[in-house]
């Protein structure tokens, strides 16, 4: 692990590496194969390509048979934002037909129950209502297989235990543990499904960045109470997540070190890495059929709709993200200061340090289409990059 002195001092305080880091330094990062497929459309072609990728990954039956499978999709931002005239699913959200297709495939592979989850920003009602407001037809998902549920994990989970504490292995970078919807505790297999895209704060949005949305905004959202979770969300995640201007309610674990930089480029990658370690992703499915260049959601002239025509999937989120970064024209070994991490730390490195997976392409077996054949340089598209000013990010 490479770490300069400034990062050391800023990130881990005077206690020093020897006291805080030994477990993390020992964490070994596993590898797992990653499948790549060319795919130009969201219909039958997607279903066939994804089915083939699942086969290349060893089949889904061994992973999901008899299990509760949770699909974490990505519906970042408000429900009425679009890139140009295009539906969100064609630019910066998980496409609803990919969700329906994966539900179908996982059901065929023997999944006992499939839950589609998202912490839909500050939405105070069901995920189904959020989808309807956004123009989705939830029945597309609910009818893709028997026993499909839609859950807004921003809200307290139904039952006696709304939240469950997830400790971060090896102590965590920023928080020692996170209180998340109990839906995640009831999950046997977590699938992360989202677009391949850039991110204004974290450099890239890939399968582990998608986990930022599992933090409930009743606990990690703006305007939450001091002592207990809010009954409903009141705002996005900018105060606690990006700016670090306050701590979660006292009922949840506070940051390990409140003297660390109050900067999104420092904080968000660490939160993501923590979550990737605390809530393991068993399957990552990244959609680059159609997506957005320039940021994670529409940002005026900064973002453009693009059609790379590629899918990336794997059973380890870090190896999958590393390959996806390479497909995007980025070096997954890049560190702060180098694209796409000009103003942030490399989330993949931080996750690797927690033992989630390796980002070293030399250690990752790639099946299906070769990276060089599907490479789509994101930086040749999009407009001038913009960072969100602290505390002013409109979504999370």
């Amino acid at each position, binding site marked *: 692990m490479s770490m300069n002195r400034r990062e050391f001092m800023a990130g881990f305080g005077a206690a020093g590496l020897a006291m805080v880091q030994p477990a993390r330094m020992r964490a070994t990062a596993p590898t797992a194969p990653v499948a790549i497929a060319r795919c130009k459309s969201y219909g039958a072609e997607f279903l066939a390509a994804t089915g083939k990728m699942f086969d290349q990954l060893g089949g889904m039956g061994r992973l999901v048979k008899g299990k509760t499978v949770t699909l974490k999709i990505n519906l970042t931002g408000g429900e*009425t*934002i*679009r*890139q*140009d*005239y295009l*539906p969100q*699913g*064609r630019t910066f959200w998980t496409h*609803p037909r990919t969700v329906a297709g994966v539900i179908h495939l996982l059901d065929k592979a023997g999944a006992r129950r499939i839950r589609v989850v998202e912490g839909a920003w*500050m939405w*105070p*009602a*069901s995920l*189904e*209502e959020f989808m*309807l*407001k956004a*123009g*989705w*037809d939830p029945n*597309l998902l609910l009818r893709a297989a028997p026993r499909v549920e839609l859950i807004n994990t921003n*809200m*307290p989970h139904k039952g006696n235990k709304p939240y469950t504490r997830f400790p971060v292995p090896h102590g965590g970078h920023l928080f020692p543990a996170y209180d998340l919807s109990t839906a995640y505790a009831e999950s046997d297999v977590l699938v992360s499904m989202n677009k391949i895209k850039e991110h204004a704060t974290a450099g890239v949005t890939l399968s582990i960045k998608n986990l930022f949305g599992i933090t409930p905004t009743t606990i990690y959202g*703006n*305007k939450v109470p001091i002592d207990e979770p809010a*009954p*409903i969300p*009141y*705002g*996005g995640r900018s105060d606690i997540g990006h700016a670090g201007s306050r701590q979660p309610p006292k009922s949840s674990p506070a940051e390990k070190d409140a003297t660390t930089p109050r900067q999104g480029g420092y904080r968000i990658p660490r939160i993501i890495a923590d979550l990737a370690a605390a809530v393991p992703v068993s399957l990552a499915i990244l959609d680059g059929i159609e997506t957005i260049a320039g940021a994670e959601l*529409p940002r*005026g*002239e900064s973002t453009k709709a693009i059609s790379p025509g590629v899918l990336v999937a794997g059973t380890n989120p870090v190896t999958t993200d590393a390959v996806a970064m390479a497909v995007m024209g980025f070096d997954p070994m890049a560190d702060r200061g180098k694209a796409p991490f000009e103003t942030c730390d490399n989330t993949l490195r931080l996750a690797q340090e927690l033992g989630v997976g390796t980002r070293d392409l030399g250690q990752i077996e790639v099946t299906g289409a070769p990276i060089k054949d599907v490479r789509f340089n994101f930086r040749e598209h999009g407009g001038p990059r913009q960072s969100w000013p602290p505390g002013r990010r409109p979504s999370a």
Partner: protein
Amino acid sequence: MNNNVDMTPLQNVVPLHWPSGPIEIARREKTEGFNTLIRRTLERWHEPAALEIAKDTPVDCIVMSWAAGLPVDAEQQRTAGPLLEAARRRNLAVVGWVDGTADHHAAIAAASKAGLAAVAIRGFKGSADLPVIAWSERANVPWDLAAPAVAITGNVWPGVSLASNAGDASSGPTSLPWLDSNSWYIQMARARLKAPLWVMFDPPGKGAVVPARSYARAICDSEAAGGRWVISLDDNLRAELAAGTAAAQESWRQITAAAGFFKEHAEWKSYRSLGLVGVISDFSGGNFELSGEILNLMARRDLLFRVVWKSQATGQLFRGLKALVYADAGPPDRALRRKIADFVEQGGLLVTGPNWGTEGKPEPPDFQTQFDVHAVGKGRVAVARKEITDPYQVAVDTQFLLSHRNDLVKIYNSASSGCTRFTASPDGKTALLQCLSYADRGRGGLRTIWVRQRYRSTRLWTIGAQPVPLDPEASEEYVGVEYHMPANAPQSYFALEFAA
């Protein structure tokens, strides 16, 4: 009153507040910031030449102070002679505003003698030989008074609220920017009044320079809801118009273009709301505060509603409604309760307070709510667990209980939208969607309008332009059709006119 007076001349006039002369000077002298420029402007606007600004504009009425119970009342009326004569030559109707402790009958007599088209008086109940516009504060409107027009004071300057947070847009309960709008009130009043509704409010004070787009927004906010703003210009603009500066004339051109657009579409005011939620109330006292704010917050969330005055409810059909909100403190009378109960039995949703009582099979909703929901007949009754005090929660919960599955309209990439109006002509052959933006700066994205129903043809109306035919685009992911707004369509206001 006004039994023998022709009231039609005021039906579709475009009135301009015309502060001028001794009464205005006497008033303003007592206010902070009064200076010689303001005095000079008030003097110049009392001169006939000032009326030149109305030339080639839709403005065909000026509203000037006539009597206020001040020593200068007589001087105001005497010195107004040349101005009134010039107005007559220009076919401008003049309305005299009467307030303070002025003697109503004396003011009317003087106005009649001076040839005013009408006077506006609060609380006048006698007879008069010229039209008397009834003016009133919001909460005390004489709803059943026969008047050629009703003028309402106490309104807000429409826009994103900048009341707090050091110039940052202040937030409502959901972090959405708070919108100031008179739309809800105008819709409420229009549901009760037969006479034209004049909406009185002034630009932000303290010498603020108000851009033309803010004036246009003020016009759109009133007109889309069915009212008519009595255009009121700020001190700076009036001074510059009097001086004839090019910038002021360009602002004035934009303001009058907006006013003219709506004058030419006067028939839109007869359109009825297509909202799916009926809000029933007597809109008086505490019920006005609560149900009025429910309307306000529904409008802000673009939850399309229809105002149902309690006194008229039993005679109305609830056709087209999917939900009713009854939040008044007192119970409805027996006939109305029966009518509401029938609505529920036939599949409607009722959202109401705890006094309604509970019956039927519990049907807990899938979100946190202050209401217990029971299935009754084919419908549902949502009864608040305790007395309703939070209008915001009523608006939010009603929207979720109704479900976005029933949305008629969605707007994508609209900056600080709200108060969207979706109405239909009385014969049902035309539907009209009016969209406003209350932000000075938009997100800048291309806007898409989704509507549930497919119409035979659609035209896009914007201020100052000819209508443009729009073809629907197939909606990829849901029912309905989409319309892609041209990139050059203004953010501030546009209307889609659908032919059924």
